């Protein structure tokens, strides 16, 4: 029973340390740094330009679609480069595998294209 309690004690200690760490770091920061707020200082930072509108402004949803497509094909490259280096040893098996992989990705691209996601209007 004591073994059991001890092993669970670890969890409690772990949790305690996690909370304490955050508390200490934030607490220490607010304790050490001077705090003299002015209206300009609390303003959102936008490269020295006066901010316009609300902080919660909406961006165009199309940005996300493009960003997603970009990440998708970016990650694809990570797989394709090493594969290309060793293609000879993989033989036909490797070729077919990669063809399937690219087919599925292209299917996604075709989907986005057919649904009009690539048009910017």
């Amino acid at each position: 029973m004591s073994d059991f309690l001890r092993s669970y004690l670890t969890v409690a200690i772990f949790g305690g340390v996690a909370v304490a760490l955050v508390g200490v770091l934030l607490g220490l920061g607010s304790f050490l740094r001077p705090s003299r707020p002015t209206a300009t200082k609390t303003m959102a930072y936008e490269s020295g330009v006066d901010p316009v509108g609300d902080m919660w402004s909406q961006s165009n949803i199309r940005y996300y679609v493009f960003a997603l497509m970009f990440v998708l094909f970016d990650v694809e490259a990570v797989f394709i480069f090493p594969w290309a280096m060793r293609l000879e040893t993989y033989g036909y098996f490797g070729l077919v595998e990669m063809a399937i992989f690219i087919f599925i990705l292209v299917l996604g691209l075709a989907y986005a294209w057919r649904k009009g996601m690539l048009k910017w209007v």
Partner: protein
Amino acid sequence: MDFSAALPVADVVAFNRPAIDWHAASPELILLGFGALLTLVDVIFLDRAKQYTAALAGIGLLVTMVPILTLANDMSETGPRVMFDGAYVIDEFSLIMKAIFILSGYVVILLSTNYIAEGDYWESEYYGLMLSAILGMVVMASSRDLISIFVAFELLSIPSYMLATWKKRSLESNEAGLKYYLMGVFASAIMLYGMSLLFGASGETILTKVNASLSSDPLTGESLSSSTPVLTLAVIFVIVGFAFKVSAAPFHNWAPDTYSGAPIPVTAFLAVASKIAGFVALVQLVFVGFYARADVFQPLMWILAAASMIIGNLIALRQTDIVRLMAYSGVAQAGFILAPLAVAGDVGDQALASIVSYLAIYAAMNLGAFAVILAAARKTGSTSIESMNGLFSYAPGLAVAMTIFMFALAGIPPLGGWFAKFQIFFAVVEQGGTWAIILGVLLAVNSVIALYYYASVARRIWADQAPDGDLTPIRIPPSLGAALVLTVVATLVFGFLPGAVSQFTDVGLIAGG
């Protein structure tokens, strides 16, 4: 896992193609093929494809059943099939779970057909995502490796997040999806943290090897009587991650909002298939990965089980919306399913058999209940419990079906649920320790509490007046009718002939490797 092969070396190392058992992998490949086909059809035909997508998805699932049946047939000759050094295993357990996933997926598609077509929904994508999620579950049933478990988990979760928000322009549905997503990634993060600790401490990702390293000192190789702190932490984190997925208390808060906001077929899918997938992962982790550390997972499971039963049932008593009621009752049911895991270290076989039977029966009766809710909502347009009042007077067939499901969920013989609950009692009493008996009494008390709200629903259906005295019958489309018939028959067969069913659920889970 040995990474040395991946390091750059001077000579070109000959490539050894991993042996792939195509027969064993065919269910997954067929599902993948149909998922791609659905998208392809959508890409080519656009709106003209809409009317065929549901049928295509359904056919895909039925075709997937074929290799599962042939694999099951071969199982007696070939024994379990192991691929990728034990990371992917096809054994009795994985086959029965795959069958449950595919059949419940099929029922969900039957439920969705008219619902999605008649409402304001994207159609083709819906079925594509549904198939991907089911593919994730099917993969999960065979994964005996931390990485493949995680991949399967994400494969089934990500489409589910999207499906939960499927109601266009509905704030509730957006809230449902967002809550589910945030809680889901939180759970994934915790789980991943646990997995990385496990990998760090044991240097292994294959569950059997993890198990071996959990029971011995990593430095000296001596067997350990107690756990090292880091492994305890890892085990707990991984289990907590899955506790979110199965909506066990105290990690259940997302379930009611998500269930009530999502479209009803998706709710059924989340409440049944997705939850069962979480249990499958838990079972594999506990029975294969952590089995040596019963001293760590048993108390945790005990607490999760007791808390889920009590919290789920008590909150369910106060619900006025039938879907939220089902959500909280689902929390309580999760507590029941977790209970055998709290004694799994001592009575492994029985605990496993009881969980598998429970999951099979749970799928049938819960899907059935959602089918009735869906059918009733076609007329009333509401999911409040009051809208069920007097169902018997204008839709006696639905009323009888709902009664069967409610009392099956409550565990009243001779309806399906009794054998599920009974098996759980059986496992818990077999262990027989003080804590097990306390859990048994908690189970008994909670079945009575649960009966109260299940019976209240049944009473409203039978004994109350229909709202506004409106007695126009409900038209049930054929696909929904088929879903109802399937689930009613399954629930009754499970109840009357538990012997026949337990032949299938009394399965072995091989460690693989």
